[in-house]
């Protein structure tokens, strides 16, 4: 035991016998047919990553089919209709089923290890998200085999995707399938935000947070803002398809461009959502290659934050050719330039770090992939600046130039770092390293293949070859370029194949005998087992393993925080969000079936709705809710143990409520999601107003009297008061009363009444959602509030039952507290809604 550091020993060693065995038992992974019940982040993360990789391979095969079709002119290997399905499914799968899930999976897999937390704060939530994604994704992808796949492109522009031009269920598969996968991405994002901010090891203040933690934090924050926009868009389009509310068709005052605005408000940040975590990974690997700290660490953090924000100012750069006034285009051109700067910061930081190395350079496979990424991403970034130039964009847009650009950016920015990750972090989950020889084969095949495949596309595009054409005549000079591209595509495929062979030969799930083969400096290379690290270290630098070489040994000996399981169950330390001061010990749920069934039923509900089998869909929906309720019934354990000792003389409570609680934080993030969704709605409302003001002028005459919105507002306010009172009226621990349930039920009724009154008053006034985009927007406000109210009603009933079961009281009140938070939010949203719906038409009419 090394005693040089003042706080080397936090817990006394040697540890009592049987402590490690107890930890192993508590955190044991379910085996065999119980595997779906597993919630450990390593298991779930690996499953998540594996599923994403399978989708990558599948979508890649579709790409090969397309490349083969395009290899020669006038080819008819695949039919026009199949080709249209192929590129739709290829794009959708790569974006929604591979890229986002893969980076989210890396977050689930790597973050807790980097933070030396035992697990993510909501293990079952991530397990739910993963299963929902696997079931939903598989069904969506399989549509390609049944000729049921959507044909609208991954961007699904209306009017082409309205029922008039896309009859049948294919487009609905996209809308419901993808809307549902987005929801699972959001669940993951909530998990990651709370995980990064609240489950860092003691002492890891924000300035010591590894770059990947930053990247994931910003990634998740971007999901919270961006995904709701596309969720709203898919809702609107599905409602228009199913019920004919005219949001997008110009006949009823809708605007096809509204879809593009919403879609790209999500779609452009999406690229950075994919890129940031990958860049974070590179920033973790580069210092290890150089055996030197990252040069300009703080600037990289700033670069990540700035990218996160600037990327929201780019969406119109996918719409430069839609005829928007030049000045507006110029703003987006400016933001597109601005986002190039942070990328530059990162690239030069990596170069500087490589230059500052102290030891001999070893070009291992991860290093090669990182260097390959540096080249490819720089090239893709430069063509990105080119397409940000509006006049150039007018030529390049929707041509193979863009196909080349986006594949450089996404493959360079995401796939290469991902492969570097596979090789670099393999020892964390595999008992063997992957082969460096095969790895180099993989790299060179992919690197050369990528350039062979995509470099010629730049020229083909400017020579006039548009995207998404299934064949081309031999009179145009595109054949040579396309043949070369196809050869390149097969080289990439060969590279991936070599990697798969490497996986089969060498990948063995299990603990590695050498946890830190690269001599890396961060916590995920501490010795690991199912419980993560044996004890949770106190951190006081960015590269603790470099600065204190004895740390691994200490941690493994249990000399740091939480070497045991004081509450007897799964737990980890919650720390404060900035300076990482330990706050409490959170008890976490273990394996269970309910999140799995909930995921399966949720997926089934969405997919059955897609094929319009309504009754079974509703049954599945109800079952999904029931499973969720059963699942959360046992989670809020209350203060069943007093404050516990975690080492270093620290005694922490095991239960808190209010702003310190991690559940409270998750609820706040969920409200941010709801807020983003509503903001997207407000934008849509104002946008359609400016695009077809006639509807609004007519609408003013059909508004109900002012008394009606006042009544609704009053009911909402009453609900807030009732929920506040309900919190007040809670019994002392062990007690039981009927006042709280009564107040809560009344509150839920008041909310329901408020929504019903608002919708009914418009109906009474003669307004119909199918009349015009105005009517559709008015009712949409009701829909958005009603869905929140529905959730509140379910949560309220749940709270009542728990209260009557004696599981909610003055101290143990997280359930009611979270419901109340949602009530307050709903009140605010509903008020804004009333103000807009009843105010704007008057402005429009005057």
């Amino acid at each position, binding site marked *: 035991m090394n005693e040089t550091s003042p706080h080397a020993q936090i817990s006394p060693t040697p540890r009592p016998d049987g402590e490690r065995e107890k930890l192993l038992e508590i955190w044991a992974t379910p085996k065999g047919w119980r595997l779906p019940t597993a919630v450990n982040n390593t298991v779930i993360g690996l499953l998540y990553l594996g599923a994403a990789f399978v989708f990558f391979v599948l979508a890649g095969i579709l790409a090969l089919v397309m490349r083969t079709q395009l290899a020669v002119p006038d080819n008819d290997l695949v039919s*026009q209709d199949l080709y249209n399905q192929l590129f739709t499914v290829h794009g959708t799968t790569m974006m929604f089923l591979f890229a986002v899930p893969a980076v989210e999976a890396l977050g689930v897999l790597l973050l807790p290890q980097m933070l030396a937390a035992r697990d993510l704060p909501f293990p079952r939530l991530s397990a739910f998200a993963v299963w929902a994604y696997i079931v939903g994704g598989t069904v969506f992808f399989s549509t390609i085999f049944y000729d049921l796949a959507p044909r609208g492109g991954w961007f699904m522009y209306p009017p082409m995707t309205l029922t008039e031009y896309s009859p049948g269920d294919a487009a609905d598969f996209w809308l419901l399938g993808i809307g549902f996968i987005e929801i699972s991405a959001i669940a993951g994002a909530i998990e990651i935000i709370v995980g990064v901010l609240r489950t860092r090891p003691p002492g890891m203040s924000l300035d010591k947070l590894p770059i990947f933690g930053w990247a994931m934090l910003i990634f998740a924050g971007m999901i919270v803002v961006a995904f709701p926009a596309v969720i709203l868009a898919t809702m609107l389009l599905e409602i228009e398809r199913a019920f004919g509310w005219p949001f997008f068709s110009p006949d009823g005052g809708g605007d096809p461009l509204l879809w593009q605005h919403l879609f790209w408000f999500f779609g452009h940040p999406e690229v950075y959502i994919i890129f940031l975590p990958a860049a974070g990974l590179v920033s973790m690997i580069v210092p290890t290659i150089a055996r030197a700290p990252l040069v300009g660490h703080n600037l990289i953090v700033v670069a990540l934050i700035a990218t996160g924000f600037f990327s929201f100012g780019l969406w119109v750069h996918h719409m430069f050719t839609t005829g928007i006034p030049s000045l507006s285009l110029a703003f987006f051109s400016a933001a597109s*330039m601005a986002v190039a700067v942070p990328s*530059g*910061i990162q690239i030069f930081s990596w170069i*500087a770090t490589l230059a500052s190395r102290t030891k001999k350079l070893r070009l291992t496979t991860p290093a090669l992939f990182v260097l390959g990424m540096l080249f490819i991403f720089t090239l893709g970034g430069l063509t990105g600046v080119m397409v940000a130039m509006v006049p150039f964009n*007018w030529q390049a847009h929707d041509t193979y130039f863009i196909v080349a650009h986006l594949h450089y950016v996404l493959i360079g920015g995401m796939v290469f770092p991902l492969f570097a990750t596979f090789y670099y972090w393999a020892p964390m989950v595999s008992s063997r390293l992957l082969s460096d020889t095969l790895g180099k084969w993989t790299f060179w095949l992919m690197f050369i293949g990528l350039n062979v495949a995509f470099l010629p596309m730049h020229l083909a595009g400017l020579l006039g070859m548009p995207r998404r054409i299934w064949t081309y005549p031999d009179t145009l000079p595109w054949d040579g370029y396309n043949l070369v591209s196809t050869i390149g595509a097969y080289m990439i495929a060969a590279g991936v194949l070599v990697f798969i062979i490497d996986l089969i030969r060498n990948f063995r799930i299990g603990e590695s005998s050498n946890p830190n083969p690269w001599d890396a400096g961060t916590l995920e290379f501490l010795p690991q087992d199912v419980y993560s690290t044996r004890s949770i270290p106190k951190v006081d630098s960015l590269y603790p393993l470099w600065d204190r070489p004895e740390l691994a040994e200490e941690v493994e000996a249990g000399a740091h925080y939480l070497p045991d399981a004081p509450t007897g169950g799964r737990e980890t330390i919650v720390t404060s969000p900035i300076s990482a001061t330990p706050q409490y010990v959170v008890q976490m749920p273990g394996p269970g079936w309910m999140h799995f069934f909930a995921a399966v039923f949720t997926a089934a509900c969405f997919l059955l709705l897609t094929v319009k089998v309504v009754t079974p869909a509703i049954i599945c929906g109800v079952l999904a809710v029931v499973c969720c309720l059963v699942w959360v019934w046992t989670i809020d354990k209350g203060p069943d143990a007093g404050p516990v000792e975690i080492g270093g003389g620290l005694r922490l409570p095991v239960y808190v409520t209010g702003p310190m609680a991690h559940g409270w934080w998750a609820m706040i993030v969920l409200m941010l999601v709801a807020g983003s969704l509503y903001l997207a709605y407000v934008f849509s409302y104002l946008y359609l107003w400016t695009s077809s003001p006639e509807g609004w002028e007519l609408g003013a005459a059909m508004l109900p009297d002012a008394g009606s919105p006042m009544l609704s507002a009053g009911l909402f306010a009453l609900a807030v008061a009732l929920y506040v009172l309900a919190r007040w009226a809670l019994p002392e621990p062990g007690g039981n009363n009927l006042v709280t349930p009564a107040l809560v039920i009344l509150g839920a009724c008041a909310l329901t009444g408020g929504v019903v009154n608002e919708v009914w008053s418009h109906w009474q006034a003669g307004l119909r959602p199918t009349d015009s985009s105005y009517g559709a927007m008015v009712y949409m406000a009701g829909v958005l509030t009603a869905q929140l109210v529905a959730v509140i009603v379910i949560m309220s009933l749940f709270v009542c039952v728990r209260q009557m079961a004696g599981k909610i009281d003055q101290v143990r009140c997280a359930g009611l507290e979270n419901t109340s938070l949602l009530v307050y939010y709903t009140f605010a949203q509903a008020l804004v809604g009333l103000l807009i719906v009843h105010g704007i038409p008057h402005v429009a009419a005057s």
Partner: protein
Amino acid sequence: MNCGRARMAGILILAALAAGCASEQSAFSGEGVESARTLMLTWILFAGGALILALVCGLTALALFGGSARRTLSSERLVVVGGIVFPAVVLTVLLFYGYALLGAGAATGAAADSPLRITVEGNRWWWRVTYHTPDGDFDTANELRIPVGEPVALELTSADVIHSFWVPAYAGKIDMIPGRTNTLTLEASRPGLRRGQCAEYCGGPHAFMSFYVEALDAEAFTDWLASERGDAVVGDHPGADAFRRAGCGACHAVRGTDASGRVGPDLTHVGSRHSLGAGLLANEKGDFRAWIERHQELKPENLMPEMATLDEADIDSLASYLAALK
């Protein structure tokens, strides 16, 4: 078509690669006022981009393999200079150049006061072209003819889904969106025949939605305009009867006959066009035959119904009639 355009071949290696056979549908040909402006920008971007890529590669190589020289790169100064100062300067210059180009484009757009207005309406999957002349409007399809050296205001719209109008040789693309009218000012610098294609995926046979733009000398253009405005010029062709009996007039118009349908392309002078089926086939009698007999096979999902009711003789006389509609 027209492979001898080696004008740019000398400019850059890249150009040689791209323009070795400057196609009829290439952004490298720059034969319009706007496309020439953009082509200049393109070369600047390519050159600048290549330089920066070389710089980054060079620095990386230095960082990896440069002995002690690499030490100069190892400080945060490199990050600040390379990552902030350098892009700030370069991008400011580039951005303002882009603004200037945008401003110039907006100025031409506003100034275009041509007596000739042309409406192009995207249809699944062909182009309805309407000339608005002082002597009245007339329709044609899948083809534009414009006078050289004169700005022509195009009004672009769509009848169904979103399409995009793109003739790279003359100008960048602009979308055709239902419910909106976008304008594009086109000015060709010299005579020539150039191909254009729908650039926004519009479902089904999106790949087969092309068209031709022919820039004509002023005189040739006036002549063409006069003849194109006129009625069909085949007299008592036997195919005319087949055309009537098969009900073609329900969808197609042939001015000067009682066929006045507006569903499909106007066929008044179809025989004189450069292509058939929106850039799909050449325009010989055999192509007409092929189209009538096999159009669903040649251009799957196109909206013309299968004409299986026609017999061999009808098809033959129809084809020769249509080819004769000059």
